[in-house]
């Protein structure tokens, strides 16, 4: 096989964690919405801010919450010269452990200090709040050097208890395929279906797996497969969901291409959903050639080929 560079592509994953808060963090987040910071009193009398739900020494649940100051002292720091996505500030800033007045253990946050020579251990800083705090740790936008003026007053209006928080997550990757997968994807770009045969057991995998799951050896022998096969099993999708591209009901099926030993999952269109059955013979319907890329989406769906159904025995070992 000629050496070709493996295909890779950017992969961005985004989702939002929605988390329920226990009694301690619920009070803490509710207080943040009022521009106040609470700590919890540990079994040894120390105040942890932000609050610990369980004592770090005895592991006992902690229930006594006390208000601490929004002003504190930097205990240690580092300089973030190129802030990463999602961090509190988009311009260079200091990360610091900050011991708030009235607390005995420090909290981690950002300090908007401008430059590293304006940060030092022992410096006094105060919380800067976002315009509309809503009950999230990000209500504290960051800390800033304390000018000595009195702390801004907390919002007096008591808000509704905060019981849930949402945290959006976005992660970026460079997804790299194996040499076998790259061959398969490049084959698709020219309208060919390329599987590979395990040199040990002779089974044909499409897409090629990189390693045979039976023998644990790389699959090397290339096998071109036709774009027709047999429905081994299927389901009728009746439920709408976010991002759905076809109006239900429609059929998602496993299609065993002729000569393959593993089925691929695809859509069966071109007949009423109720007519799809195990053993039905189907053929690929390709998108227009000018839309092809190195992607399995080149095959839009499969449709009934009109041939007689395959005998159960012909696919019984592939269910």
């Amino acid at each position, binding site marked *: 096989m000629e050496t070709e560079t493996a295909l890779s592509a950017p992969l961005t994953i985004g989702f939002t964690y929605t988390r329920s808060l226990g009694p301690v963090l619920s009070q803490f987040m509710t207080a943040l919405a009022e521009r106040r910071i609470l700590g919890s009193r540990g079994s040894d009398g120390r105040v942890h801010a932000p609050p*610990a739900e369980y004592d770090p020494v005895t592991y006992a649940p902690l229930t006594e919450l006390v208000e601490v100051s929004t002003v504190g002292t930097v205990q*240690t720091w580092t300089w973030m010269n190129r802030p990463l996505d999602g961090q509190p500030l988009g311009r260079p800033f200091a*990360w610091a452990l900050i011991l708030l007045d009235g607390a005995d253990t420090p909290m981690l946050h950002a300090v908007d200090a401008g430059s590293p020579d304006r940060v030092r251990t022992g410096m006094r800083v105060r919380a800067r709040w976002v315009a509309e705090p809503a009950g999230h740790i990000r209500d504290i936008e960051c800390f800033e050097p304390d000018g000595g003026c009195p702390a801004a007053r907390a919002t007096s209006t008591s808000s509704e208890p905060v019981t849930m928080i949402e*945290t959006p997550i976005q992660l970026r990757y460079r997804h790299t395929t194996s040499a076998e997968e790259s061959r398969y994807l490049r084959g698709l770009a020219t309208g060919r279906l390329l599987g590979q045969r395990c040199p040990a057991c002779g089974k044909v995998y499409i897409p090629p797996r990189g*390693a045979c799951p039976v023998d644990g050896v790389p699959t090397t022998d290339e096998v071109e497969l036709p774009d027709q096969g047999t429905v081994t099993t299927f389901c009728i999708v009746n439920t709408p969901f976010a991002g759905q591209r076809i109006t239900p009901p429609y059929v998602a099926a496993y299609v065993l291409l002729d000569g393959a030993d593993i089925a691929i999952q695809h859509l069966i269109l071109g007949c009423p959903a109720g007519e799809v059955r195990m053993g039905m013979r189907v053929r690929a319907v390709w998108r227009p050639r000018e839309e092809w890329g190195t992607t399995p989406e080149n095959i839009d769906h499969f449709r009934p080929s009109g041939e007689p159904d395959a005998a159960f025995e012909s696919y019984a070992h592939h269910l």
Partner: protein
Amino acid sequence: MTDVAVIGFAEAPCRPEAGTTSGVELLVPVFRDVLAAAGLSRRDIGFWCSGSSDYLAGRAFSFVSAVDAIGAFPPITESHVEMDAAWALYEAYVKILTGEVDTALVYGFGKSSAGELRRVLAMQLDPYLLAPLWPDSVSIAALQARLCIESGLFSEKDMAEVAVRSRANAIRNPSAQVSGIAEVEELLGAPYVADPLRAHDCAPVGDGAAAVILASGDRARELCERPAWISGIAHQVDSPGLGMRDLTTSRSAAGAGAAAGLGEGGLDVAELHAPFTHQEILLARALGIGDGVEINPSGGVLCGNPMFSAGLSRIGAAAQRIHDGTARRTAGHATSGPALQQNLVCVMEAR
């Protein structure tokens, strides 16, 4: 109680960018090498246990694709931890103690380079109070380093000396990603990556894989000339609240070392999983490892830190010194979480 020994170890070379996102193909030669050295076939292994992370791979159930590299048909007994594979080794050790199996193969793998590692690692933090701020792993380590330096525990020069020794040791390690002769003054002239950490203070980002074979009693003696008998293994964890523990030491490392009986005999070699120079100094202190002990003769993770297999490799590297007859009693250590939050110590001896 059943005696359990490490009888085999292999690792893939740690490289800045290697292989696919799944990491499966990195495992294939590692399995081949570790099994061949032990004279075993895949079918001889009683239990398989792996360590890896979906956050590294960027997809759910990513470890399942690695099972292809085992050849999992007919069905095998298999388990997985979303942690460094040193913790998978702990599970496999316990599995052997139950008497259900007499051999286990433990493996770890990951492609740290697929995403932005220092940012991805924010996902392991407290999801309410810390992770939403996206503090990265290097910055958190820097906060710890400054606390130690300003407490007078050690200096930036002491840290650079750790890097110099590690890189020199790594010259003899073909799996190392970084190695060579460096001068302390030259390293200290480099700019800060995260004040007070410079590039030499931080483990490089790299991709890799490793595997260890465990066997019990007579099976171990039959398969290995000099088994590395596990005399003690323990792991402990500290609070996830960064402010709630003393970052100038590692209570969980000290606790795990004591529980594993680390101090109950002389030690020849300690392989410490310290992704930052200052953490090696902290760990040696917390574990009571003094002069006369070779620390990280492999170069350690400062010279190659493939996530989710690097801790397992520390145990493997420490065991290898017993296998080759150059040490009588060694320790492998693994860490997980921010700023040495969770620690595992495995003490091994020749018998």
